[in-house]
């Protein structure tokens, strides 16, 4: 009569086999290759690399395949792998001013040195299902040819924010970290008050959906910061290290990045003239939604440092930073699936006793 309510080894092994089978789907449909995911699901790969905090397209594609397309699960796989990697050193700060730009837009000036470059964007597509994509064999679309003639390769594309800073109307970014130490949340736990380096790291790893909602809330009046997209740029940036034995840095590769610099109104204080301030967002690959939302939230979290009132959720560092990581959130929400027989039994006992006491009192 006492049925086995407690699972075991065999159940787990069987669940794993079932999962593998579901992942593969109908075997008459060809299996996805890592290269296909990497090439044709590239924005999924970008998101997994950003929130997985590891720049490796192939591993991110593998994680997506293994996770059956569940990106939060894929991010988890990549993070769990990343944490086992040795640290070989630190790169120099990257310089996005020297980015090989593929897309660059500014919403604050009609034209800027280097020009506006639309690049590969969904922005002006009409969201109509393209049924021709449903046909499997198609001609490969030809990318547009760059304009010929006297157009030179774009070598200089100064950041819009640098131009504004030079004029003094935009507050310069200052290095708040002492010496060379930069916060690293993967080594040291979050502590409060959290400096901007720690905050930006947490936001860079944060769940895109969570940041999107929070950023949106600042636009609707919960911590309004009057943002303008000063610049969004996307492209490849060189990564350099400085070996101790050499007098010059060496380039070890490129990473594709999306950077957003949000420009926000600031009324100034007794000591400072009114000027613009900024919020910063950065994501691996083409992660515009993430970078823009991150920039809004970064600026919102600067409320205290800029002497603004901070009473909205997006301005509350403890609220934002403790809840933005999708690994932590997903794990803790879903752990409610694990057995809680013992605590529930304890609660049952209390509840029954309370009910009995109330009934007795009523009699």
């Amino acid at each position: 009569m006492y049925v086995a309510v407690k699972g075991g080894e065999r159940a787990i092994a069987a669940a794993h086999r079932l999962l593998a089978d579901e992942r593969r789907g109908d075997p008459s449909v060809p299996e996805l290759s890592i290269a296909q995911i990497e090439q044709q699901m590239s924005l999924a790969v970008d998101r997994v690399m950003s929130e997985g905090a590891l720049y490796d397209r192939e591993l991110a594609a593998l994680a997506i395949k293994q996770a059956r397309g569940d990106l939060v699960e894929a991010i988890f796989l990549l993070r769990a792998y990343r944490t086992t990697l040795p640290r070989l050193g630190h790169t120099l700060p990257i310089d996005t001013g020297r980015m090989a730009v593929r897309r660059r837009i500014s919403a604050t000036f009609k034209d800027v040195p280097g020009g506006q470059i639309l690049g590969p964007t969904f922005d002006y597509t009409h969201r109509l299902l393209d049924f021709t994509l449903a046909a499997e064999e198609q001609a490969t679309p030809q990318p547009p040819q760059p304009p010929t003639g006297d157009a030179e390769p774009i070598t200089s594309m100064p950041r819009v924010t640098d131009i504004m800073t030079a004029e003094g109307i935009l507050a310069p970014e200052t290095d708040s970290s002492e010496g060379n130490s930069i916060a690293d949340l993967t080594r040291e736990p979050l502590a409060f008050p959290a400096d901007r380096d720690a905050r930006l790291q947490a936001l860079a790893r944060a769940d895109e959906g969570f940041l999107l909602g929070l950023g949106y809330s600042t636009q609707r009046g919960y911590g309004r910061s009057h943002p303008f997209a000063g610049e969004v740029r996307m492209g490849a940036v060189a990564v350099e290290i400085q070996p101790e034995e050499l007098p010059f840095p060496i380039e070890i590769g490129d990473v594709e990045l999306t950077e957003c610099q949000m420009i926000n109104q600031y009324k100034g204080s007794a000591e400072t003239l009114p000027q613009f301030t900024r919020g910063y967002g950065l994501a691996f690959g083409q992660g515009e939604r993430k970078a823009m939302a991150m920039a809004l939230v970064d600026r919102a979290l600067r409320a205290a440092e800029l002497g603004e009132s901070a009473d909205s959720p997006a301005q509350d560092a403890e609220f934002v930073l403790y809840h933005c990581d999708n690994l932590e959130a997903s794990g803790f929400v879903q752990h409610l699936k694990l057995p809680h027989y013992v605590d529930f039994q304890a609660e049952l006992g209390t509840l029954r006793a309370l009910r009995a006491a109330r009934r007795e009192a009523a009699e």
Partner: protein
Amino acid sequence: MSGSPEAAGGYNFAYLDEQTKRMIRRAILKAVAIPGYQVPFGGREMPMPHGWGTGGIQVTASIIGRDDTLKVIDQGADDTTNAVSIRGFFTRTAGVTTTARTEEASVIQTRHRFPEKPLRAGQILVFQVPIPEPLRWLEPRESETRKMHALEEYGIMHVRLYEDIAQLGRITTAYDYPVRVNDRYIMRPSPIPKFDNPKLDNNPALLLFGAGREKRIYAVPPFTKVKSLDFEDHPFEVQSWDHACSLCGARESFLDEIVTDDRGARIYVCSDTDFCAERRDTGHGRVDASEAAE
């Protein structure tokens, strides 16, 4: 108990690299030196989700050595799925001997229970902790609660317990019941039923608590005073049952209620499977429902 580094399936002994283990051991030493104090540590991502015991697993991985014998329980049972999974993880990554017998284990990792059999000096009990902060439901901000601990500002907790008594006639916290450790820090014993709280007091074993998501470690060293919060006129008391275990007849253990049909019939069995099995092996028998309910 030092782990000697050696690759097992491409990973270090007990999964974590030695630098990480050292960092965690330093946090454990600090936790032992300041009983009940929550020590922040650089918690790592583990290959299982937060909420599945990543804190306890990191603590176990940092203290376990080749000669250790490991027992893993969840809800008191060795055969619940997550206990099976964690035990499998350490078998795979550390190759240690595992056991279901409480007395044979040198390290016991647990979720939500304290074993029924008394522990002895030299054993280590590692708790998986979801929320380490006892004041969290009263004050959501970590920056505030850390200050409250530093200043020993615990009035708010007593007020909460008092409000329960005033409104409901009793303290309604049934598990994760707050304790005061070594007359100083208020500590969350992790979600063990308050039935288990008395076992924390003056226990000969070392009790370690790991919270992976919240990145905190705390400890109760052997033979340390642990007092469940109460009032003189409302002393702390533990749960009791009108039933005995249907399998072994025990009346002194924590019982799980099991619904056996859709007409409300239920039986009660020990949540500690090892304790129950041993009693059955030594001749304690089945009790039928009518007898058990005496």
